[in-house]
């Protein structure tokens, strides 16, 4: 599973970090950074939920 955060859209609302703290971290630049680029399959649900909840719709999850 591949996760990308669109840094132009992201505004540090931290929903992603609250939902999947193993994967997303919002840093001092107010942007969400990936702690793992290819999160393991067992995290799929969580990561998808983060993408769904992101107010700016900045997260995309794809399969490869």
């Amino acid at each position: 599973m591949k996760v990308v955060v669109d840094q132009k859209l992201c505004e540090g609302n931290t929903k992603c970090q609250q939902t999947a703290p193993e994967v997303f971290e919002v840093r001092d630049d107010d942007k969400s950074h990936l702690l793992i680029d290819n999160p393991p399959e067992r995290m799929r649900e969580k990561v998808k939920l983060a993408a769904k909840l992101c107010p700016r719709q900045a997260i995309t999850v794809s399969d490869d």
Partner: protein
Amino acid sequence: METESALSLESLNIIGPDHYAKNGYPHREWTYLRKHKPVFWCEYPKTDPFWAITKHADIIQISKQPRLFLNGPRLLVFVNEMGLERSPTPPFRHLLDMDPPDHGEYRAVVSRRFTPRGVRPLQPEIENITRQVLDDVTGRDKCDFVLDVSSKIPLAVIAELLGVPHKDWEQLFRWTNETIGGGDPEFQAGTTAQETMDRSRLGLFQYFTDMVVERMKHPANDITSVVANGKVNGQPIPQFEMLSYYFLLVVAGNETTRNATTGGLLAFIEHPDQWQKLKRNPELIDSAVEEIVRWTTPVIQFARTATEDTVIRGQKIKAGESVCLFYPSANRDEEVFEQPFKFDIGRDPNPHIAFGLGEHFCLGANLARLELKVIFSQLAQRLDHAELAGPVERLRSSFVGGIKHMPIRMKMKPAAAAA
């Protein structure tokens, strides 16, 4: 409540401002549409036709695609009661009527001021402003909660953010009311809604023109300075866009937060058990704020215009047609919320979309949340009793759901006693 069978697609009206002034939000109609016709073609007199979108999932699908569904051509559904000619030059150009790629460039100029980290330093000032406003009504047994409390705080916060001096706050207040409530007779300073809006827009433009000149010479730590000295694609922001920016900030954060505050207190008056629950459990404040925002959903609608033929929920939408996103309807969607018509300050999860979503997601959402948190925390500590002391009067608008007047009988404790 009348039965559902009294409604029919031919007769239901979800856009007439009179309807909103008289009855408040048409939840009965929206509920009917969600069930029977969630993507509904509307043709009303004096209104360009549009698709009414009433389901949560459909509003999300549309908001996620800012290149397929544009803001620019038609920002909202407007009932043209005066038969106005469409003006050849738009009166503004700001974030709400921009589209990608410009939109993101403009938004980035101020966006860091509005992130959770960006708004946190404002908390002490918001607390002071709120305390002062509540102090002013302490000792009285009656007030108009809108005039005396809920309208004062958001305005003061925005004025503070923009660096507008205290002496000019009243003037800002008037311009804002007249611009957004121009369709309501009480706020008409000119003979027509359009004249009133034009006049207040020009007033604001002139005011900020003077301020910009000053802030270019002497930048301060306020948002007026950030915009005045901001760059878009490496160039200074043109004057028209700059003035529109201030206009948007003044208008967008005012009526909305005011109405969430008024509607929030009204919800608590109508649901005393929830009020007691908040007083006893101050840690519920964050989820209470989310529920207040869901329950009141102050922005009724924005529109988008399709750039290509597309399909929503099986319904074909043609290029050039507009869709109208009814946020309050989405926030009562029974497919998303358990018991959507129950006001429950402990609601979790609460995936409401009162702040929209995606490209245009409310820039001020974190600020609004902080304001509401401060206001309702202080009210929970200080307001011992509140009840309606007369009828609630609603704004005549099908854009922002407003309460103009809400007379209450109350007992407010001094801040010291509350601490």
